[in-house]
């Protein structure tokens, strides 16, 4: 399978291709608008950073010989370490983010996510390791580097007494090739608030303004540090819609979060951080191996038939308690087929038949608990 087939969002980034941040009829459920890429990379292919060398990420004609342009990853982090005095906040983290991808760093508070992101933004210096962001070392990238990135901070950073329009126009004036101010405000869903002072905006509107400020410079790479922490459900939904909208513009996004549903909803890939380590890298669906292992099939055994009557199948021995049968299997399709064919053949109903995967939360807790236990025993 060619690697490029895994990159459905590899559309060329252009300054005119503005994403629709708020789709018309924005009352629809955000989950409906999940906008999954049509083809997802198989889990095995993106499990580790080693499989992610330089990849063709754009089919854009380079204008010379018609060959596709080969773009290096947007972010390459190798053995990154950051110490604060005696405390090691980030310890040997390596990962890569492809162009056009939404990559999430997931982890509990204090895991080292924000420190990692701030090093990539150029806000902090690293202790050791190597970091490349859009081909720059962010520590010394200077203006040329900052022309090409957009940063949404965890909180605040806006002048309360300026209006929305003044704020966005001010930030647009810093950039060589800004987006149109009015269009950016409109796409952030703040068209009606253009002349309103920042102090009068609600939490959700402030977040929209944050995003407008980060986007008005037309960045190739956007950093979103816990974009919805402390939000009410409506504001979170709005933020998710905006971020999902950026996907279509081809913007690369590095996101941090400690919300599992957020990562599930938005990210193409996720790196789980715990105690300064990157403990797993996966797609949200495959986190903790939950895409392939441990599907649970359960039902109540018809009273007329004992468990011994169950057909042979690719499952462990049924756990028969009061007629309640629970099976753990790696082949849910075959199990279901065998079971239902048997039940239909015997003319019985399998009451309470359910098929469930371990939840993302289960997988995540297991990963971070393992990491904590490992971290503690290692010290």
């Amino acid at each position, binding site marked *: 399978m060619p690697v490029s087939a895994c990159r459905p969002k590899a559309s060329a980034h252009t300054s005119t291709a503005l994403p629709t941040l708020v789709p018309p009829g924005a009352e629809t459920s955000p989950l409906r608008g999940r906008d999954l890429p049509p083809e997802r990379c198989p889990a095995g292919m993106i499990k580790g950073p080693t499989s992610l060398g330089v990849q063709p990420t754009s089919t854009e004609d380079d204008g010379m010989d018609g060959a596709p342009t080969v773009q290096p990853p947007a972010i390459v982090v190798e053995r990154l370490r950051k110490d604060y005095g005696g405390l090691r906040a980030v310890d040997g983290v390596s990962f890569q983010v492809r162009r056009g991808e939404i990559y999430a760093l997931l982890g509990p508070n204090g895991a080292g996510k924000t420190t990692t992101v701030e090093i990539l933004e150029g*806000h902090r210096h690293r202790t050791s390791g190597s970091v490349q962001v859009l081909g720059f070392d962010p520590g010394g990238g200077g203006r040329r580097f900052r*022309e090409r990135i957009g*940063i949404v*901070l965890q909180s605040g950073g806006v002048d309360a*007494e300026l209006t929305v329009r003044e704020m966005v126009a001010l930030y647009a004036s810093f950039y*060589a090739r800004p987006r149109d101010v009015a269009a950016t405000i409109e796409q952030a869903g703040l068209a009606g608030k253009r002349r309103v002072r920042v102090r009068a905006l609600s939490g959700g509107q402030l977040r929209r303004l944050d995003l407008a400020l980060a986007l008005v410079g037309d960045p190739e790479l956007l950093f979103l540090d816990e974009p919805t922490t402390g939000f009410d459900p409506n504001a979170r939904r709005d933020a998710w819609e905006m971020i999902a909208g950026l996907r279509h513009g081809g913007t690369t996004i590095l996101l941090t979060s400690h919300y599992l549903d957020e990562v599930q909803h938005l990210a193409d890939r996720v790196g789980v951080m715990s105690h300064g380590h990157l403990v797993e890298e996966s797609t949200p669906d495959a986190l903790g191996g939950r895409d392939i292992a441990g599907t649970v099939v359960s039902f109540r055994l018809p009273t007329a038939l004992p468990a011994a009557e169950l057909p042979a199948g690719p499952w462990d021995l049924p756990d028969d308690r009061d007629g309640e049968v629970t099976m753990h299997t790696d082949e849910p399709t075959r199990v279901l087929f065998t079971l239902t064919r048997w039940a239909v053949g015997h003319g019985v109903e399998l009451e309470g038949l359910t098929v469930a995967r371990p939840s993302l939360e289960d997988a995540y807790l297991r990963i971070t608990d393992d990491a904590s236990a490992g971290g503690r025993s290692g010290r």
Partner: protein
Amino acid sequence: MAADAARRSRPGPLLALGQIRYQLMLLLRSPLGFFITLIVPLLLLISLNVVHPPTAASMPGGLRYAQFLTPAVSAFCLLNACYVTTVTSMVLAREEGILKRLRGTPLPAWTYFCGRSGSALVTSLVSIGIIIATALVFFHVSIIWRAMGYFAAAAALGMMCFFLLGVAVTTAVPKTDAALPIAYGTVLPLAFISDVFFPAEHAPHWLYDLASAFPVAPVARAMEAAFNPATHSWPMPATGLLVVLGWSAAATAVIALRFRWEPSPIQ
């Protein structure tokens, strides 16, 4: 590379002008900043002059009190516009995360400082203009035209020094609440011993010498001398100039070593 050419950054001087405009706009919309820079000195000028002005006989050289107070309050204007406002608004900008956000954009750091100092310059000029105009109209102060160059030069030295000190002091202010008390807590005692409200002619020698070690006194005394008809030459002694330049250099060193764009860590 074509993409890089398209991303050629905007010229710094243009960004610096934009920053001056931005800072002035913020100041005009902040009631506290407006009050500090424009209203407080005016209130001082009027109240000190009207309530209980010392008689000319008690003034050094028999000078009218208004003739002394006008340049003295002008020096106070500089302290407000360049020092107090800088401390309060820069600490606020840092703690609100505004500085950090700006640092993540292509805006060069020096243009931000240009914006800050430029807006301090403009507000200084406006507030001194209001003070002198009020004094001319209501207190019949006379302008000594031949000494106005001295007045401007002393004021320029003061602006530079007070602005640098203001930025340097922000590095020692941990949070927004502390900015105004620290700013006024440092300025007011200095102003009182540095001839800004009353001439220090009758002050004890040690107090006069103490004041002379800080930059407010040399600047205020030179500006006051420029309103005295007896002044015929550059009124700031070399030691005074050294004190002002020394404090400016020390403040610059503190800024270079300690200035930060990030908010204070949450306690």
